[in-house]
């Protein structure tokens, strides 16, 4: 079993239109490096100076990695990683 990585609409140009791709690695950093190897150009859209871009949120099993160790957050087979742009949300 691999790691499922869900790709937001705006970044599917890098994944041939795929909504979800398989990833691997022991940390989010390794996972993103593997993504870059498979889908060249995507890393630069996610990271800036070695950090997640300001308006990019990355979740491992629904938890925002900014609060779980950042790009060093551990990932393992069977995990789901979701990448989403920051939005204002809904019923406010």
């Amino acid at each position, binding site marked *: 079993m691999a790691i499922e990585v869900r790709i937001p609409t705006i970044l599917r140009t890098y994944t041939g239109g795929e909504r979800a791709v398989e990833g691997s690695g022991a940390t989010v950093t390794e996972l993103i490096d593997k993504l870059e190897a498979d889908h060249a150009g995507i890393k630069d859209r996610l990271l800036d100076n070695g950090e997640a871009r300001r308006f990019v949120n990355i979740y491992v099993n629904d938890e925002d990695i900014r609060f779980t160790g950042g790009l060093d957050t551990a990932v393992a087979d069977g995990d789901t990683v979701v990448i989403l742009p920051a*939005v*204002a949300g*809904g*019923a*406010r």
Partner: protein
Amino acid sequence: MRFDSLIDSVGGTPLVGLPALSPTPDVRLWAKLEDQNPTGSIKDRAALGMILRAEKEGLLQPGATILEPTSGNTGISLAMVASQRGYPLVCVMPENTSIERTQLLSMWGARIIPSPAAGGSNEAVRVAKRIAGENPDWVMLYQYGNPANADAHYEGTAPEILADLPEITHFVAGLGTTGTLMGAGRYFREHKPDVRIVAAEPRYGELVYGLRNLDEGFIPELYDASMIDSRFSVGPRDAVRRVRELIATEGIFAGISTGAILHAALAQAAKCVKAGESADIVFVVCDGGWKYLSTGAYEGTLDEAEDRLDGQLWA
């Protein structure tokens, strides 16, 4: 309890235990029933706080028009307070919100300017900022950046909870304007710093995230990441599942966003059980389910409910 007027009765909501949903006798869940505010949501606190602050600072003169980007509860709360204090209200609202919200806003006398569904609240904020520029005499209270929004929870919600439950270990609330979490988070940081602050962020269908460039995202000006300790993203399926569980087990009829918050609270509770810690976890019931009946969230299978909520701003 007696009050001089309806707006004087905002806040002071009950905190109730959830004996059936609490996973163990040592890990307990508590619900702060914000649906029991005058217009039925937690936003009464922020709306009243922002209007009183603007009056006090002289930004809001008698009869001035108030403008606000809002897809629902804040608009309804502002409409009620504004009607009581003599201000016309204009709400900029995404067109893909539930019909009940439009009906309620109209009932309290607000005028609605629709913003395009694609882009969700980001778009409503953008449209409102443009309209504000075109109408310099209108007053935009701007819930996403108005410190009075967070202060309402610093002064009300959080101290009420700490008084009722001094043993609180976790506070869980929804992340939208971020006002609840920023205000309550700051209060607990100052008064009981070992309380962990947990955010539940709704995850919508793809339409809502739009096709915009990743550099054009939106983070509310109020947001300060140091006020929270963890942040869960919750999709509509889990939110609906939990909101149904809440009514089935504890009899509490809440809105869909509360289901998302409960999901994060239960995830936190499971972590505490696993770690062998005792915990008193308070989560916010933001509003009742009445405004969301037409979304179909409360009937049929989870698959059906999930399909119906796709593309809607359900929280």
